[in-house]
């Protein structure tokens, strides 16, 4: 992705001086970020506000994909790929499948919200939460620097199979347990 951006920068900055070329690269960076951000945020808002649950599910997938792109933007292609595969693929399909299995009536009013009072309360709580976190984020002056860490996939693989082999195996076992558990729960104990 970085190489890609550098290429774009090169094309755009053709013949410009250094300061301006930096500025233009920054602008492109920013516009890519904001585009992806708006995709994710608007899709997420859609998930929360849509009255049709199928639309919600589809917008959720869109949000997942936006976030996955942001991972790639942050030079983490492996996580992005995992995001696409797991969230954009598996989870989205699971959710849609579940919707299919549990909904039989009109889809237009399938995604009910609670009372207006509840909504107002939820808005206050989530707004206050956002306010707190953003104040904390803005107040903290992070010493930012991007270290050159090399290939993230190789690095992750190294860590996962050496230092973090135990969590890795545990995660594998967890997934197996979740799969069996899901099967058992969905099937029901008395229907053997």
């Amino acid at each position, binding site marked *: 992705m970085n190489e890609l951006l550098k290429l774009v920068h090169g094309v755009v900055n053709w013949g410009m001086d250094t300061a301006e070329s930096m500025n233009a690269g*920054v602008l492109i960076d*920013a516009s890519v970020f904001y585009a992806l951000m708006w995709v*994710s945020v608007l899709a*997420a808002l859609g*998930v*929360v506000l849509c009255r049709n*649950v199928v639309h919600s*599910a589809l917008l959720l997938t869109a*949000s*997942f994909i936006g*976030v996955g792109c*942001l991972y790639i933007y*942050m030079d*983490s292609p492996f*996580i992005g790929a*995992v995001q696409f595969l*797991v*969230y954009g693929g*598996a*989870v989205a399909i*699971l*959710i849609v499948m*579940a919707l299919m299995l*549990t909904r039989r009536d009109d889809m237009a009013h399938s*995604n*009910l*919200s*609670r009372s207006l009072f*509840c*909504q107002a*309360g*939820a*808005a206050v*709580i*989530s*707004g206050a*939460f*956002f306010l707190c*976190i*953003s104040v904390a*984020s*803005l*107040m903290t*002056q*992070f*010493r*930012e*620097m991007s270290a050159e*860490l090399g290939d993230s996939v190789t690095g*992750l693989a190294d*860590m*996962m199979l050496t230092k*973090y082999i135990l969590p890795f195996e545990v*995660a594998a076992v*967890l*997934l197996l347990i979740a799969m069996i*558990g*899901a*099967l058992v*729960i969905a099937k029901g104990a008395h229907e053997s």
Partner: protein
Amino acid sequence: MMDIFSLSAVDILNWSVHIGLTHFLLLAALLFSIGLYGLLTRRGIIPTLMCVELMLNAANINLVAFNHYRPVTDFSGQLMAVFSIAVAASEVAIGIALAFRIYRERGSVNIDELNHMKG
């Protein structure tokens, strides 16, 4: 610490085009808050689960962003995100199985009707 109350318009513009860690943190906070709103208002189990997934995503954004923008020497943030995704996947599987089960037992997936634990 940044004195956010004494910034000029130029400063704000300059800050808003230089994408950094703070932007990602704010994005994550926004996504999380949206998910939280949904979690508190949706009535169905599956929409609620979707909102939980949104919130988990926001947390993963934080992990990756910190790994990218902070002077770290390895990929532990991303690794954490991988494990987080694995856990989230299991959670979705179990959650949906439970939703399915509840639907079959009670013919409804509305979370406000599940108040067996009422004191």
